[in-house]
C-alpha cells in the first residue's frame, strides 16, 4: 500500500492534499490531536520522515520529507474564559482569528510576533517568536499555561494545565516553546490572557541610531516601563531615519502617567501616533520579517545593545532590524550566506550571546541550524531529549547544523 493510501485509510480522504506543496510532498491535515498521534505512530512504524507545517507563512515549507503534516485543520478554540483570563486553542488556529475572538470577549493575548497576521498559534509557540511586546509582557513561554503535543512516535503528551500557576510535574510546556518542533508537534495550547487594555498609546521619535540609543537609555533610567520600546531600522519603520517607538498599554491613568513621564524624560520629543497609525506601524514591522528570506534573534544584555547592533551592521548589515534595547533583544531580517550566519553566531557566542535562527530556506536552516554554539554540556542533553521524544527521527527539523 502506498504512503498516501495508508494515510487515507487512517485519516480519510479529506486529510490528504495531493501535490499541494511546491515540492510535491504530500500534505496531510489531521483534524484532531488523536489523528495526529495516529499518523505519527504510523510514521514511526513505516520510517516516514515528516515535516511540520502551520499556515506556511513563516518557516518555508521546503524541508525534504516523505510527508508534510499541517496543523491547519486543528483550528478550533475550545474555550475562552474571560473571568479566568485563559483560553484553550488548537495549534492550527490563525493568530488573527484568535485575536478577534478574544477581543470580542474583552480579552487580549499580549503577543505581537513577527510574520503575517494569520500565522498559527502553534507556529508562534514552536518558534518562540515574540515581538516588541516581550518588553512589557515577557517571552512566549510566559503566555503559556500548558500544551498538548504529539511525539515522533505518536504519543499524546499533556503538560501544564488551564490555571495560571502550576508546578505539577516537570515543565514540558517551556521545553516545547521554542523547540521548533524537535520534541513534538504542538496540537493544543492553553494561554494566559489579559484584559483588553483600556488605553493603548504609541509614541515615536525619528533620529540617528546613536541619538535614539541615548534616548532609549534615558527612558530606562527614568524608570518608565513601556509595554514595548523598540528601535527600528529605517527600512523596517518605512521612515527616512531610525525610529524609536514606545507603546504604553493599560488603564487610562497608567498610560497617561507613563506618557507624561516619557515626555518629561525626553524633553517632549516624541510624537503621539493616532490609534490607526500605531497599529499600522507595529503590524507592518511584524509583517516585514515575513518578506525577508532569513530572520534570527539574539539575546544580549541591555548595556551591550549598541555594541551588538554595530556587530550586526558590520557582519550582516542592518537594513531590517528591530531591537528592544532595554532588554537586549534584537531581531534581524534580510539575506545572508550560510558562512556569514555561522560567523556571526560564532562571534556572538564569544560574547555569551545566543543566536536563534528563526526563519530561512531549508538549505540555510539545515547548514546553520536553529540553534548552535551550545554552552558546556548542553549538546548531549538536547540530543537525549530528541531521542526521547523522537526515537525514530521522524521529524525533519534543523535544530542543529547538519554534520
Amino acid at each position, binding site marked *: 500500500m502506498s504512503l498516501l493510501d495508508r494515510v487515507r485509510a487512517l485519516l480519510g480522504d479529506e486529510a490528504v492534499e495531493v501535490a499541494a506543496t511546491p515540492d510535491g510532498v504530500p500534505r496531510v491535515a489531521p483534524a484532531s490531536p488523536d489523528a495526529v498521534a495516529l499518523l505519527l505512530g504510523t510514521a514511526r512504524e513505516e520510517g516516514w520522515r515528516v515535516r511540520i507545517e502551520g499556515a506556511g507563512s513563516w518557516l518555508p515549507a521546503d524541508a525534504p520529507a516523505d510527508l508534510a503534516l499541517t496543523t491547519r485543520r486543528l483550528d478550533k478554540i475550545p474555550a475562552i474564559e474571560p473571568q479566568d483570563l485563559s483560553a484553550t486553542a488548537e495549534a492550527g488556529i490563525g493568530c488573527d482569528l484568535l485575536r478577534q475572538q478574544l477581543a470580542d470577549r474583552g480579552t487580549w493575548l499580549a503577543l505581537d510576533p513577527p510574520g503575517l497576521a494569520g500565522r498559527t498559534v502553534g507556529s508562534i509557540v514552536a518558534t518562540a517568536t515574540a515581538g516588541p511586546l516581550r518588553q512589557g509582557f515577557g517571552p512566549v513561554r510566559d503566555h503559556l499555561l500548558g500544551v498538548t503535543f504529539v511525539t515522533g512516535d505518536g504519543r499524546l503528551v499533556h503538560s501544564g494545565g488551564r490555571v495560571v500557576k502550576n508546578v505539577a510535574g516537570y515543565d514540558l510546556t517551556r521545553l516545547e516553546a521554542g523547540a521548533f518542533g524537535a520534541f513534538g508537534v504542538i496540537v493544543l495550547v492553553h494561554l494566559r490572557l489579559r*484584559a483588553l487594555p483600556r488605553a493603548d498609546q504609541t509614541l515615536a521619535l525619528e533620529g540617528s541610531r546613536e541619538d535614539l540609543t541615548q534616548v532609549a537609555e534615558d527612558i530606562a533610567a527614568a524608570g518608565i516601563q513601556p509595554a514595548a520600546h523598540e528601535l527600528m531600522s529605517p527600512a523596517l519603520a518605512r521612515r527616512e531615519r531610525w525610529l524609536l517607538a514606545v507603546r504604553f498599554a493599560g488603564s487610562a491613568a497608567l498610560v497617561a502617567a507613563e506618557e507624561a513621564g516619557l515626555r518629561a524624560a525626553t524633553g517632549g520629543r516624541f510624537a503621539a501616533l493616532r490609534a490607526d497609525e500605531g497599529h499600522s506601524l507595529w503590524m507592518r514591522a511584524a509583517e516585514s520579517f515575513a518578506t525577508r528570506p532569513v530572520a534570527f534573534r539574539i539575546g544580549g544584555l541591555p548595556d551591550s545593545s549598541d555594541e551588538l547592533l554595530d556587530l550586526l551592521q558590520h557582519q550582516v548589515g542592518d537594513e531590517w532590524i528591530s531591537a528592544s534595547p532595554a532588554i537586549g533583544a534584537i531581531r534581524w531580517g534580510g539575506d545572508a550566506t550560510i558562512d556569514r550566519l555561522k560567523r556571526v553566531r560564532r562571534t556572538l557566542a564569544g560574547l555569551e550571546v545566543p543566536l536563534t535562527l528563526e526563519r530561512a530556506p531549508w538549505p540555510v536552516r539545515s547548514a546553520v541550524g536553529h540553534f548552535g554554539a551550545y554552552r558546556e554540556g548542553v549538546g548531549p542533553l538536547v540530543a537525549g531529549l530528541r531521542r526521547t521524544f523522537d526515537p525514530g527521527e521522524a521529524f525533519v527539523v534543523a535544530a542543529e547544523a547538519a554534520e
Partner: protein
Amino acid sequence: MSRDVASLVDTLAEIVGPGHVRTALPERVTYAKDGLPTHRRVPGVVVLPGSRDEVIAVVRLLGALGMPFVPRGAGTGLSGGALADGDAVLIVLTRLNRILKIDARNRLAVVEPGVVNIRLSAAAAPHGLQYTPDPSSQTACTIGGNVAENAGGPHCLKYGVTATHVLALEVALADGRVVELGSPGGEPWGPDLVGLFVGSEGNFGVATRITVRLLPVARAVRTLLADFTSLRTAGEAVSAVIASGIVPAALEMMDQSCIRAVEDSVYAAGYPRDAAAVLLAELDGGHEVAVAADAETIESVLRAHGARSVRVAADAQERERLWLGRKKAFGAMGRLSRDLVVQDAVVPRSTLPDVLETIARIAAEYGLTVSNVFHAGDGNLHPNISFDGRTPGLRERVEAASAEIMATCIAAGGTITGEHGIGLDKLRYMPLLFDGDSLAAMRAVRRVWDPDERVNPGKVVPVHACREWAGTRNAERGTRNARGNARSDFRVATSGLDT
C-alpha cells in the same frame, strides 16, 4: 557504621572538612522533615559543602559510587521534597550563601543556591531593585530551593513566579558533569532548558550558580483591606477584580479561622474578627497618580461586589502591619493545634466561590478545622488543616480530607500544586492529573538528565503509573517508587525512627 559507610564519610570529610559531615543520629534527625509535618525520613549521611567546587566534588564522588543523593536548601519546603532516605546522602546547600554579583545596569544578580531569598532583595535595594518572588518563607528559604520548586508568593500575581525571573543556571548533573543553561540576557542556547530545570524539584541535578532578573522597586504602592460577610462573596469579588483589567501586585484572601488566628497572635494586623473573609489587595507601579487611580478603581470594584468595608493603608507602617499578618498567618495557625498541614492547589479563579464552599463542606464532614489563607488572584488555594497528630485516627482523616480537596480542585479544572511542588506528598495525586504517557514522558525526560534516577529519588513522578517508554523499558526493574535504579545496599541505622 559499616566499612563502606565509614569510607564514604572519610572521603566526604576530605572534600568538605570533617566539621561539615553529619553522621550522628541526633544530627541527622534534624533534617528528617521539611515544613510539612506529615513526612519524615532520616538521611543516611548529611554533608554541607561550602563552595561550588565542593558540591561538584561531592556529586562526582556519589556518582562514582552510584549512590542516591538529595539536594536541600533551608528545608522550608511543603511537599516532603527535600527529604532523604537512610540509603541516600543529603547535600545541604545553605553554606553556599554568597551573592556573587549585582549588575544594576542590566538588572540581574548572580547568586549561590544557599542565598536566603530576602537577602537578595535587601542587597539589591540600594540600587532601587528587588527580587520579586516572595514566598511566605522568604526570610528563611533559599534561592536554590525556590528554583527547585518554582516558588511563588503573593506578588507573583503581577510579577510572575520564580521561572519568570531565572535567566541562567550552572548545574552539576548526577555524575558531577557541569552544564551551563541559559544566558544572562534570558535567550536560551537552544531549547529552553532553564525553563525545564526550574521546578524540577532537584531531580535534574544541583544548581550551583543562579542568574536572576531584578526589577525596579515600585515607587508608588497602595494596600487595601476589604472585608466580606461571606466567603462566596469574597471569591466573587476576586473574579471581578481580575476582570477589571487592572492587575494588582497581590490579591490575597484569608478566611475567618485564619483572621482570628492572626488576631490572637503577636502578628495582629487589625483584621476585622467578625468578617467571613478579608481580601488584601496591593497596587503598585512607577507613578503615584496612576497607582492612586487604579487603587480607587479596585476599591470601587470591591465595594460593588459585596465588600462590607474597604480600608486603605494610610502609611508604610500600616501597610507593613497588614502584610505581616498575612505573611505570618501560617505561624499564627500554629496556635490552633499541634500540627498543621499546609495544602496547595490551584483552581480557575471563577470557580473559587464554589470550591471554597466545597472545602468547607469536606472539613465539616471530616470534623476538621480548615483555614484558608491564599493567593486568591492566582486561584492558588492553601487550605490548611490544623490537627493533633497524637489523636488516634486523626492523621488518616486528614489524609482522606486532603485527597478529597485535591479531587475537588482537579474536578474544577485546576491542579494539585501551584507552588509547593509534588515531592512525596502529592505523588499519589499525579495519576489523577496526568495519563500514563504524559507521566512516562516526564520520567523519560528525567532520565536524560539523570539516567539512574539517583538525584532526589522517589519524588515528582510516580513510576508505577508511567506507561512504557522507549529507552526506559530495558532499564525498568519494577522497583518501588522510592528507589529508581540507584544502588541501595547502603543504609545507616536510624533506630527505627524512619517513618
